[in-house]
């Protein structure tokens, strides 16, 4: 008996030791992962293009960059595109010190950022890559509202509305006495950031008592089955679910009610819930690094616009994308917005 207890005891400690050793081994493995052969001197690569491309910036543009980068790297295996997510502002900070080759931005570059770039001698090429539009939807059975103003949307979605605004008749007095059911994207989504910025004046400022989901389908389900439902999500997703939901017109600054469509989003009349999104390219990197040039050309090539749609955005219409391609080949520097906002600016006129 004594022998067996001793034996089993030692066995357990052996087992434990083995386990701990195993765990330690697992822990030790992690840092050695990643890093493939990168700067492999170009000559043996099939496309002849090799090297690193540094992209950083907006989380809104990230899905496009990521999709483009994946396909681009598959076609050019010797290249390595690193896409970071520091936000538009954080991206420009790195871009204007020359750290990154391309900066993703969900808004035009600001005056102070232009100055920072100038001081560091960084010239940039501003390229719209897609449109990001938000559609506000209601149940198809909703017959009392066609058009909402941004003030009314603010009444519904403002942080102060939390627990207070719960009925349609609080939005506009002639609306019926119908409970308001709210659905929208979660706080990690770029759509949420833009909507709260455009409607509530501050990114991230929103009431919290609504059905928030990172899955747009939840919004479709919720609004589709709730007579008093109201929700919002990206226009591209609405296109896929047209007919199940009713898209509202939004009154723009000129006082017109405009329904979201590819045309109204592209020409800037569907405002403020639509905007172009950009990449900013370091001109020097574009001219001296063939891999950056190849990647930028790849991104603006209309042949790849399907990747934009897949990422949930609206590809640029043909006339605009033509101008963007021309802008790339001429390496036109400077911002068409001159440090201002993109709201209400017709992109096709400015490019």
């Amino acid at each position, binding site marked *: 008996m004594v022998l067996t207890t001793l034996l089993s005891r030692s066995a357990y400690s052996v087992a*434990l030791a083995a386990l701990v050793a195993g765990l330690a081994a697992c822990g030790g493995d992690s840092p050695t992962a990643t890093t493939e052969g990168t700067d492999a001197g170009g000559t043996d690569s099939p496309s002849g293009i090799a090297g690193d491309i540094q992209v950083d910036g907006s989380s809104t543009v990230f899905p496009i960059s990521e999709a483009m980068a994946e396909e681009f790297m598959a076609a050019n295996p010797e290249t390595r595109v690193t896409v970071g997510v520091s936000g538009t502002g954080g991206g420009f900070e790195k871009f204007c010190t020359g750290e990154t080759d391309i900066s993703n931005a969900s808004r035009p570059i600001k005056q102070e950022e232009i100055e920072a770039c100038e001081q560091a001698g960084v010239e940039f090429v501003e390229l719209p890559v897609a449109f990001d539009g938000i559609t506000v939807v209601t149940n198809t059975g909703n017959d009392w509202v066609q058009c909402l103003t941004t003030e009314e949307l603010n009444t519904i979605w403002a942080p102060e509305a939390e627990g207070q605004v719960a009925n349609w008749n609080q939005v506009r007095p002639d609306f019926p006495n119908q409970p308001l059911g709210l659905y929208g994207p*979660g706080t*990690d989504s770029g759509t949420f950031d833009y909507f709260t910025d455009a409607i509530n004046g501050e990114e991230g400022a929103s009431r*919290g008592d*609504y*059905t928030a989901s990172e899955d747009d389908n939840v919004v479709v389900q*919720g609004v589709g089955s709730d007579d008093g439902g109201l929700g919002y999500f990206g226009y591209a997703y609405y296109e896929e679910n047209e007919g199940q939901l009713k898209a509202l017109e939004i009154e723009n600054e000129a006082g017109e009610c405009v329904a979201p469509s590819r045309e109204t989003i592209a020409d800037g009349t569907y405002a403020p819930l639509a905007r172009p999104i950009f990449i900013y390219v370091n001109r020097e990197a574009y001219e001296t690094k063939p891999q950056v040039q190849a990647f930028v050309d790849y991104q603006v090539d209309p042949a790849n616009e399907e990747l934009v749609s897949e990422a949930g955005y609206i590809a640029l219409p043909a006339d605009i994308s033509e101008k963007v391609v021309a802008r790339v080949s001429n390496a036109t520097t400077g911002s068409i917005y001159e440090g201002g906002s993109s709201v209400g600016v017709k992109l096709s006129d400015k490019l």
Partner: protein
Amino acid sequence: MTAEVPPQSSASLWRPNRQRSKQIQNLVVVITGAFAAISILTTLGIVATLMFETFEFFREVPFWNFLTDRRWTPLFSSKQFGIFVLISATVLTSVIAILVALPLGLLAAICLSEYAQPKTRRILKPVLEILAGIPSVVFGYFALLTVTPFLQSFIPNLQGFNALSAGLILGISITPLVASLSEDAIYSVPQSLRDGSYALGATRRETITAVVLPAALSGIVASLILAVSRAIGETMIVTLAAGQNPTLGLNPFVPVMTMTAYIVQVSLGDTPVGSLAFKTIFAVGMTLFLMTLVLNLFSFWFVRRFREKYE
């Protein structure tokens, strides 16, 4: 064991290789010990992580706010941390689930063990257990896409996401657990007790309600509590069908957000590790863990206290 073996035994003589069987024996002990240790260490690791992150959470959020805030909006700019918003939703769906699972499961168990012919029982019991094998995501979509529209046809103000259909289907999903465990408890009541009851002139129904069920009570209650724990921890059904809108209250017709649904919501986004939002899921997880722990301890105590022992 200690029989002397001649040092030069002839090859034709068979001898057990004791040295080797000892080694194998040791190896088996090591292997089984290692596996037992893995499960224990995993549990300890989970509890330690939960405690550590929860502690971090309460360094930023006062415990009092956690208990008394009337809203749950940790991801928004107006941060409030009223855990009872989530607890109320979890309790609501679980109560509805138990209201479904208790009668269904218990009656099924009684039918199986008391009324069914042995042959029928042999077929019915595995069929009932198949229900337990349905993935909960399937139950969730069933609740969302089939049960809710059906209920809406006669409950007009029922919203697309609601606690009611989630709770009903949650109840169906835990019914096999209640039925199977209760049935085991009822079935193991000695036949002699039933015979005694019949000998006194009791009918079958009287025997079941007055003798068999009280005798099996501890097992039934244990199965029920286990089922409640499952309902509280169940994730997919409530995430899909009950919605993700943190509302305080016990209205089963509107979207609610259970604790598990909140954890799913945060885990699906790209919440940075170490942020307050990230820590909230551990605080919620800890609450969930404590709730099921209390239930399990209660069940353990109840079974001990009320178990009827028969020879």
